[in-house]
C-alpha cells in the first residue's frame, strides 16, 4: 500500500528551491534551441498549424455574425434558410479543420518535447560516466538526480505548453484585434478598453500578492524540513522525550503556514472570478454600446453576437500569454540546470598513443616514482612519493578517518591524474594505458557495498560477459555465500530490492564475489571489511586471502589488526603519506603508526 504515485507531475526530491526563475533567460533558450535543431522542421509545422487554427477560430464569429444577420433580417419577412444552411456548413468545415490543425499542433509538440526530454536524459546519463570523479566530490547526488527527472520533466511539459500556447495566443490576440476593428471600430474600442480596464485592476491585485506566495512557499519548506527531521530521528525523539518540544516547533510553523496558506489560497482563488468579471464586464459593455449602435442603425445585430464571442477570444489570449511566458521561464530555468550539467568539463582526454596491456600477461609489479598530487592546485597532498611493490605483495594503507586513504586508490585507478612523476605497472606508466585498460587490471572491493536492484546473479556477474554458472558457483563458494544463496527460494535469481533480507556482511561478500568473477591481476580493497563484524570478517578474510594469492593487492584498513602481515604499510595523515615500512619497522620507529597502534591497547 505504500506506492507513492502521483500522476499530475512526476516529481522527486525537494521542491522548495526557487527554480522557476532562470539566471539568463535568453542564453538558456538559445542553448535549448541549438540542442533541438533536428526538430526545427517539425516545430515549424507545429507553429504553422497553431497559427492557422487560430485564424480559423477567428473567422468563426464573423460567419456567425452573417448568420445572425440573416435571421434578424428575416424576422419579419421570412428567413433565407438556404443561405443559413450554407453558412452553417461552411462553419462546420471551418471548426473541423481548426480542430484537426490544433490537434496536429498538440501531437507534434508532444512528440517533440518528449523526444527532446528523452535525448536530454540520455545526454545526462552519458555525461555521468564521462565526468571526472572530482565533480562528485563537490556535488550532491540529489542535485544530479533532480536534473535527470524534475528538470527534464519540467522542461518537457512546459515546452509542450509554452510554444504552442504562445503562438496560438499571439495569433489569436492580434487576429481578434484586427477582426474587431474590421467589423466595427467603435465596438472594438469598447471591447479593448473594457478589457484593459479589467486587466489593470487584476495586475494591481496580483502585484500586491506575490509576497504571500513566496511566504507560503518558505513556510511549506520549513514545515517539510521539520517533519522530515523529526520522523527520521524518531528513535532519538522518543528516547529523549522530545515529542513535546517537537510538537511545539511544529505548531509554531504550522500556524505561520496557516496564515500564509489561506492568504495565498484566497488570492489565487481570486483569479478565476476576476477573469470571469473581466469577461462579463466586457460582455456588458459590448451589449450596451452595441445596443446603442444598433438602435441608431450604425451596426447590425449580428455584430453584437460576433463581439460577444470576440470578447472571449480577446481576453483569453492575454492570460494565456502570461501563462506561457511563465512556462517559458520555467523551461529556461530547467534548461539552464540541465545544460549546466551537460556542459561540465569531461575527464581529460586520453593520450594519442596508448599502450595496450594484456591483463592475462601482467605480473603485477607496481612502482611509484616521485609521485606528486593535490586535489586542488594550491595544496599538494602527496609529495614526491616513491615505492616499489613487487608482484604478489600486499600493501596496506592506514591512517585515521579523513587522512586521505582513498587518494591512493584514486591515483592507481586513474580516477584522478597525478601532478607529476609516474605510476607504472610492469614498467609501463599508467598514463600511457587507457583508463578502461587500467580498470581491467584491477578488481576492487569498496567500503560501502554497492549493490543494485536486480538478481543476485546480475549483481555478481555485473558487466562482465559470458560468465559460466560454474564460475559463479565457484566464486560464491570461495566467499562462503553458497549456503545463503541456496537457502533462498529463487537462489541466484532472487531479486535484491529495498526490502531484501540481506545483512551487511552478506552484501560485502557479494561484492567480493563480484571482484572474484572479474579475476583481474591486481586488487584493491578499500576498507572492505569495516562494515562487517570481526567474526564475519574472519570469513571474509579467508575469502580475501584466496583472492590475494598471486595478486598484488592494496588494502585500505581501519583496523590495524588486518594489516600486520602486509609487505608494505603506508601511513597517511592529513592527506599525505607520513611513514612507510613494514609493521615491525614502523613500530620500532616509534612514530605516528606506533602511537596509533598502541592506543588501542592502553587501558582507558
Amino acid at each position, binding site marked *: 500500500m*505504500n506506492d507513492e504515485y502521483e500522476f499530475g507531475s*512526476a516529481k*522527486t526530491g525537494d521542491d522548495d528551491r526557487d527554480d522557476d526563475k532562470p539566471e539568463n533567460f535568453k542564453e538558456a533558450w538559445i542553448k535549448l534551441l541549438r540542442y533541438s535543431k533536428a526538430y526545427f522542421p517539425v516545430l515549424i509545422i507545429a507553429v504553422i498549424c497553431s497559427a492557422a487554427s487560430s485564424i480559423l477560430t477567428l473567422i468563426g464569429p464573423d460567419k456567425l455574425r452573417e*448568420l445572425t444577420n440573416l*435571421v434578424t433580417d428575416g424576422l419579419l419577412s*421570412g428567413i433565407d*434558410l438556404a443561405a443559413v444552411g450554407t453558412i*452553417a456548413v461552411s*462553419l462546420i468545415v471551418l*471548426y473541423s479543420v481548426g480542430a484537426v490543425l490544433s490537434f496536429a499542433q498538440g501531437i507534434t509538440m508532444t512528440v517533440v518535447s518528449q523526444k527532446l526530454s528523452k535525448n536530454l*536524459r*540520455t545526454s545526462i*546519463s552519458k555525461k*555521468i*560516466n564521462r565526468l571526472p570523479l572530482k565533480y562528485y566530490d563537490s556535488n550532491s547526488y540529489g542535485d544530479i538526480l533532480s536534473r*535527470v*527527472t524534475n528538470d527534464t*520533466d519540467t522542461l518537457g511539459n512546459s515546452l509542450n505548453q509554452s510554444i504552442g500556447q504562445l503562438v496560438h495566443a499571439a495569433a489569436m490576440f492580434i487576429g481578434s484585434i484586427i477582426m474587431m476593428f474590421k467589423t466595427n471600430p467603435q465596438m472594438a474600442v469598447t471591447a479593448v478598453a473594457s478589457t484593459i480596464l479589467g486587466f489593470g485592476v487584476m495586475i494591481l491585485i496580483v502585484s500586491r500578492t506575490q509576497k504571500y506566495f513566496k511566504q507560503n512557499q518558505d513556510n511549506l519548506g520549513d*514545515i*517539510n524540513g521539520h*517533519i522530515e527531521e*523529526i520522523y527520521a*530521528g*524518531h*528513535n*532519538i525523539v*522518543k*528516547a*529523549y522525550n522530545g515529542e513535546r*518540544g517537537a510538537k511545539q516547533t511544529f505548531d509554531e510553523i*504550522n500556524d505561520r*503556514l496557516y496564515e500564509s*496558506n*489561506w492568504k495565498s489560497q*484566497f488570492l489565487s*482563488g481570486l483569479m478565476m*472570478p*476576476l477573469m*470571469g468579471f473581466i469577461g462579463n464586464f466586457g460582455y*456588458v459593455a459590448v*451589449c*450596451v454600446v452595441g*445596443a446603442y449602435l444598433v*438602435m441608431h442603425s450604425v451596426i447590425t445585430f449580428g455584430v453584437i*453576437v460576433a463581439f460577444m464571442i470576440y470578447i472571449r477570444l480577446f481576453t483569453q489570449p492575454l492570460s494565456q500569454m502570461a501563462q506561457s511566458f511563465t512556462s517559458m521561464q520555467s523551461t529556461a530555468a530547467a534548461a539552464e540546470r540541465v545544460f549546466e550539467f551537460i556542459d561540465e568539463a569531461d575527464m581529460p582526454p586520453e593520450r594519442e598513443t596508448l599502450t595496450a596491456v594484456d591483463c592475462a600477461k601482467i605480473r603485477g609489479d607496481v612502482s611509484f616514482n616521485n609521485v606528486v598530487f593535490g586535489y586542488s592546485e594550491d595544496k599538494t597532498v602527496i609529495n614526491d612519493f616513491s615505492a616499489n611493490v613487487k608482484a604478489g605483495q600486499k600493501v596496506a594503507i592506514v591512517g*585515521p578517518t579523513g587522512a586521505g586513504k582513498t587518494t591512493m586508490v584514486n591515483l592507481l585507478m586513474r*580516477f584522478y591524474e597525478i601532478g607529476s612523476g609516474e605510476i607504472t605497472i610492469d614498467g609501463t606508466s599508467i598514463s600511457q594505458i587507457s583508463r578502461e585498460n587500467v580498470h581491467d587490471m584491477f578488481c576492487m572491493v569498496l567500503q560501502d557495498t*554497492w549493490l*543494485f536492484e536486480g538478481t543476485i546473479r546480475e549483481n555478481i556477474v555485473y558487466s562482465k560477459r559470458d560468465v559460466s554458472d560454474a564460475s559463479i558457483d565457484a566464486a560464491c563458494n570461495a566467499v562462503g555465500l553458497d549456503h545463503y544463496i541456496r537457502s533462498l527460494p529463487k537462489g541466484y535469481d532472487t531479486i535484491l530490492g529495498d526490502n531484501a533480507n540481506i545483512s551487511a*556482511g552478506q552484501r560485502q561478500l557479494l561484492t567480493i564475489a563480484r571482484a572474484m568473477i572479474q579475476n583481474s591481476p591486481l586488487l*584493491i580493497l578499500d576498507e572492505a571489511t569495516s562494515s562487517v*563484524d*570481526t*567474526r*564475519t570478517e574472519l570469513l571474509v578474510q579467508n575469502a580475501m586471502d584466496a583472492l590475494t594469492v598471486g595478486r598484488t593487492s592494496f588494502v585500505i584498513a581501519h*583496523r590495524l*589488526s588486518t594489516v600486520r602481515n602486509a609487505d608494505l604499510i603506508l601511513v597517511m595523515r592529513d592527506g599525505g603519506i607520513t611513514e612507510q615500512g613494514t609493521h615491525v619497522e614502523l613500530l620500532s620507529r616509534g612514530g605516528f603508526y606506533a602511537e596509533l597502534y598502541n*592506543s588501542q591497547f592502553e*587501558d*582507558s
Partner: protein
Amino acid sequence: MTAVFKYLKAGAWAAICVCFALIFAQVWLDLKLPDYMAEITTLVQTPGSVMRDVWIAGAKMLVCCLASVATSVAVGFISARVAAGFSRDLRGGLFAHVENFTMEEIGGFSTASLITRTTNDITQVQMLVAMGLQIIIRAPIMAVWAMLKISAKQWEWTALVGAAIGAMILLIVFMMIYALPKFRKIQTLTDNLNRVTRENLTGIRVVRAYNADKYEEGKFETANHELTDNNLKVFSAMAVFMPFISIVINGMSLGIYWIGAYLIDAAPITDKITLFADMITFSSYSMQVLMSFMMLVMIFVMLPRVMVSVRRIAEVLTTEPRIRDGNVTESPAGVSGEIEFKNVSFKYPGAEDYVLREVTFSAKRGETVAIIGSTGSGKSSLLNLVTRFYDTTEGSVSVDGIDVRDYTQEALRNKLGYVPQRAILFKGTVTDNVKFGFSASSHSDVLGDVKKAVSIAQGTDFVEAMSDGYESAISQGGTNVSGGQKQRLSIARAIYRNPEILIFDDTFSALDYKTDRALRSTLKRETSGITSLIVAQRIGTIRDADKILVLDGGRLAGIGKHSELMNSCEVYREIALSQLSEEELV
C-alpha cells in the same frame, strides 16, 4: 474517511453552509445576466424603444456582475480559510499521532512514506477542499438551474445541449479508460529511472572500476525508453482534449443558431422577437451548463488521486501504536541504574525467527556491561528492549526493579541516555541539540552543563572552534559537522541528561582509536554511578568492562570478564583473536 474529515470542525461546517448560500446567490446572479441580455435584445429588435431602457438594463447587468464577483470573493475567502484551517489541524493531528508511534509502526510505513503522507498528501486533500467548496458545490447547482431555465424553452435546443453533454461524457470515459492508467504509471516509471540513475551515481567508482559505463547506460536507456513511450501515449491522448472541447462548444453555439433560424422562421409573427431573444440567452445558458460540466469533470479527474491521499492519511490515523504506556512514574527510592533481563526472548513483529532467546543477566548501579557478537546476533535488539522501542515476546526486562512495561514511557526514558549507531542531530544550535528534550527551566545552569557534557564527549575543541561556539547553528540533519563530530555531540546529549543508565549502540566504532580511548577514560572518571550498556565491535573498547555478554545467534554464549571469557568462551576467543594477536591479549 471519517478519521480524516473529523478534522473539519463545527466552525468549518458553519462556514461551509454560508458558502452554500453564497453560491446559490451567485448562480442566481450569473443566470440573471442572460435575462438582461434578452431584455436588451428585445428592446433593440422592437421598433420605437428608448435608449434609456437599454442603459438601465445595462446598469442592472453591471450590478449583477459586481455582485457576482463579490460573492465569488466571499466564497473564495471562506473556502481558503476553511481549507487552510483544515489542513493545519489535520497536519497537526497526523504529526502528533506519528509522534506516538513506536519503531514498529514507523518501520511498517517507512519514514519516507510517512513524510509524504504528512506533507504532499495533506496538500492534495487541502486542494480538494478548497476547490470543492467553490466548484463541487457550484457546478451542480449551476448545471441543474441553468438546465431548468433552458428546458422551459424549445426542446430542440435542449436536445442539442444534451448531445453536447453526451459528447463530453464520451471524451471523459475515453480518458478514464485509456489515459488514466497510463497517467498513474508515470510515477512508477519515473521512480524506476530515478533508481537506475541513483545506482549509477552512488556506485560511480564501481561502475568505472568495472568499465560498466555502457552497461549502466543500457539500463538507463531501457528505463528512459519505457518512460518516454508511456508519456507519449498519455500526452498524445491529452492533445485530443482541447480541440475536442472547442469543437463541441462551437458546434453547440452554431447548432443553436441554425436550429433557431428554422424555429423562428416557423413561428407566428408575434413570437418571433421573443424567440430570437430566447435564442441569444439560450446560447449563454448552454455555455454555462457546459462549463459547469467541464468543472465537474476536472473534479472527477482529481478525485481518484485525492482519494488515494485521503486513504493514505486515514491509514496512519487509524493505526494505533502497539506499545501502551504503563502508569508508574517513580521507581523505588534508593534504587538506581539497575537492569535485569529474565528469560527474555524476542522476535520482531511479523517475523518468524527469534532474534533473542532466553537471555538472562543483570547489571548493578555503576557497572559497565558490554555486549559483543557478530552482525545479526541481536545486540541492538537487546538495547531496543531496554529503551522500550519494542516489547519482549517472552520474559521480562526491568529497570530499577520495575518491569519497563509498567512505567510511563516518559518516566522510563528519563532514566536513560541513549546514543544510536547513526548520530542524529536536529536543526538548531549546538546547545539546542545537547539539551534536546528538556524544557528551559529543568537545569539551573544550562550552558555550564552543556559545556561539561560536551567536554566529557571530547567535543570541546571543535565546538569552541566553531564560529559561534555553543550557539553555532547546526543545519538540518547535522550536515555541517563531520561524522565524528556528530557522534560526539550525540554522546554529549546523552550525558547532559545525567541519566541512570547510558546506552551506547555501537557508538564508538565511528571514532578513531585515540578519541575512543580518551572518551572512555573521561566517561569512566566523570560518570561513576551511571550504569553503562555498550554494544561494540572492537575488543579494545570493551576489554575492561565489568561484565561482557557474548551473543551468538540471539543466545547468550558467554558472560563474564575479558580474562574469564578468554578461557571459557570459544566464540569470544574467536572474535578476540580475529582482532589481536594472542600475545597482545594476555
